[in-house]
């Protein structure tokens, strides 16, 4: 009697569950529910990765991999055709690993190289995209993708409720650096400066070397698949550019990725690059860097041909 009642309840619950899933997927396929861009940095990483893996890109893409520095640059640019695999809190290795596992047409991949490469590969993100069964499930049913998480979709709907989709975008007349931005910048630089003036410890250098070996292997594998690989670093705050650590890391990476084997993009012109926190460029400077990268990638690929 207990068992029968329990099984009855279970079946009714499952029926309700399947019905709700079918309804939700139907609303997505019908274009009723919008995709979200993510409510947290983790969600943003996953969504951008999933969109590349499950939706792909037409033709040979330009893919930019890196950390939140790259994500920040690409987030402020209007370069719609490029694929941004900059990982907030992450490293180029994660983006490169996504490319290695995807079966899309190879194009150009730009790899951000700096001290962020010593961060670990995001195994959880990769498993969430390529895990057995998960890949097929999310490929077939978009409701299981991170961009369609119900609460993220709800927040997106609430956030854009009053917006007129037909309205022309407002002119961006915001100043490059407000007084408040400048204050924050000064504080962040002052906080970071003592650490940046310390040389890398033996353990830190070992970690960078170890990660570099892994990235070298990833690059070799991608080149074998037909990808053209370009390396770059992104400008940090100009007030920290000549610190001991910054210079040491640059020299180390030049040694680990020599220009006779790897193709480096030219560095952006030296100027007062401003950040909001000592690392991430302010909006206007991020846009300039994105435009510079775009131009240099085109020039470099043209000269290669």
């Amino acid at each position, binding site marked *: 009697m*207990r*068992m029968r*009642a*329990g*099984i009855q*309840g*279970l079946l*009714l*619950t*499952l*029926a*309700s*569950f399947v*019905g*709700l*899933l079918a309804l*939700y997927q139907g609303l997505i396929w019908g274009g009723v529910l919008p995709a979200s861009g993510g*409510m*947290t940095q*983790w969600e943003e990483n996953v969504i951008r990765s999933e969109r590349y893996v499950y939706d792909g890109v037409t033709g040979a893409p330009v893919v930019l991999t890196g950390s939140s520095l790259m994500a920040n640059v690409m987030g402020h640019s209007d370069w719609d055709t490029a694929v941004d695999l900059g990982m907030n809190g992450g490293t180029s290795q994660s983006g490169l690993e996504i490319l290695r596992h995807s079966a899309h047409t190879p194009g150009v991949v730009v790899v951000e190289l700096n001290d962020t490469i010593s961060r670990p590969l995001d195994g*959880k993100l990769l498993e969430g995209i390529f895990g057995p069964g998960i890949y097929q499930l999310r490929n077939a049913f978009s*409701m*299981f993708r991170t961009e*369609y*998480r*119900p*609460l*993220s979709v*709800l*927040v997106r709907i*609430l956030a854009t409720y009053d917006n007129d989709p037909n309205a022309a975008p407002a002119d961006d007349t915001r100043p490059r650096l407000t007084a408040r931005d400048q204050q924050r910048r000064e504080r962040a630089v002052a906080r970071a400066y003592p650490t940046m003036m310390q040389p890398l410890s033996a353990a830190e250098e070992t970690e960078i070397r170890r990660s570099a070996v892994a990235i070298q292997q990833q690059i070799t594998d991608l080149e074998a698949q037909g990808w053209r690989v370009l390396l770059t670093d992104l400008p940090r705050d100009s007030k920290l550019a000549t610190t001991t650590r910054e210079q040491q890391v640059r020299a180390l990476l030049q040694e680990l990725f020599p220009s006779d084997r790897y193709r480096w993009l030219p560095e952006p012109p030296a100027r007062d690059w401003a950040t909001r926190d000592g690392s991430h460029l302010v909006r206007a400077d991020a846009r300039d860097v994105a435009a510079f990268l775009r131009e240099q990638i085109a020039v470099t690929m043209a000269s290669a041909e």
Partner: protein
Amino acid sequence: MLFTSREFFVLYAVTFLLYYLPPLRRIQVGILIVASLSFYAWSDPALLLLLIGSIAINSLASYMVAFNRERRARIAWATAGILLNLGILVLFKYGALVTNLFLQSFGVAATPTEGLAYLLLHMPLPIGISFYTFEGISLVVDTLRQEHDAELGKSRHGWDVDRNFLKHVANTSFFVAFFPHLIAGPVLKAKSFFPQIKPKALGEINWDLTLRSLLIGYFLKVFVADNLQDYTFWLTYPYYQTQGTITNLVLLYGYSIQIFADFAGYSLIAIGLAAGLGYELMQNFNFPYISRSLAEFWRRWHISLSTWLRDYLYIPLGGNRKGEPRTYLNLLIVMTLGGLWHGSTWSYAIWGVFHGLGLGVERFFKLDRVSEGAVAGSWLRRWLVDGLRVVAIFGFVTVGWVFFKLPDFGQALDFFATLPANLTQAPALLRIVPVILYSIPVLLYHLPHYPTILEGGLEPLARHSRVFWRAGQYAVYGLMLTLLALNPGSSEAFIYFQF
């Protein structure tokens, strides 16, 4: 091994299948012991030795207490059992704290790099140690009390230590290590668990309890707590320093919801898993956030720990039987030690003192009596008065959670100092709105038990339309499953695993 991991689902499925095979019915307890030890050893096999050692100590101590004719010998064995359990707990959990205090007292500035001090400062914290040592103590004390009562001619408490020592070791192993409750409770009592140890059949499973507990438990943990943690992360140092006051307060509220959802979710999962194997674990949470007094809160929150502290600490200290001043002191001692049980930093002790003082003040002004009986007057008046009380107690408890989120006492104080300093900063809606949305299920979970509603009763509503009521229930369950499938949070260890 987390309850939300793939490995655990495999372990439980295999255990369940073997457990109910008719030819293996006689060794059901053995199957669960093996499964439990495997579960514990998964994260760190070396620490399994400590668990086995604890089982051995408690088996021997309780056996000697049960079958020793001399009262003094029984007390000696019980004392030895209690001290050994406490010794293990103090060594592994408070070794570093005590060592640091010792070093500071003697003005030793340099951190030791070898020797006993180094060892004590780097002791691993075995998972579940706070729970299984307390259970060992309760086994030994309950056995002693039972024997003393039997000597005085009182009836036995409905359970007995098995005369066969090996059988008793098996029962004790099962009691201590049973995997649903091993890592984070509920803290079991021997007198309620031992009588349940017998062969179980598939047809005896309480499917309604099992499935409902598992569904609600996983929903609270995976959907509510695991998602909220992505936002309450911003309450850590130094991030809260750059956030506005409203944002920080909402995130703190979110942490209050998260810690409930995490721990209550875990407890419900434990109850469901145990029920699937035929064992009933005690309820650990009874809708604590609708408490109208702090005393009521402690009757509804982490019930297994609060009753343990009452039965094995508060009452032996004299409880409320030694006059008012002694009662306040006992409350303070018990709550401070209860705070320290959670962790070996001063923040946890301060949290305990905070609640101890709160209970004392409440008792002094007789505010703890407010939970007894309904407020007089109209329904609206009762609703408002209850509402104010519930909000006040929730606010008090939430302030206390700062010491859990920021175990560094200096950071906790800094957080409070940041609140008035950042009043003019704009609220971060992208953090506030999700926190409010994710907390709604917990509010709805508590709502039917809100005092005025509960006293009004939901039964008339259910009686009028039983079909729709049941259909609505299954629709809600279906919705919970849907949200679990589509909107899970990042799988992380349960908060109480660290205690």
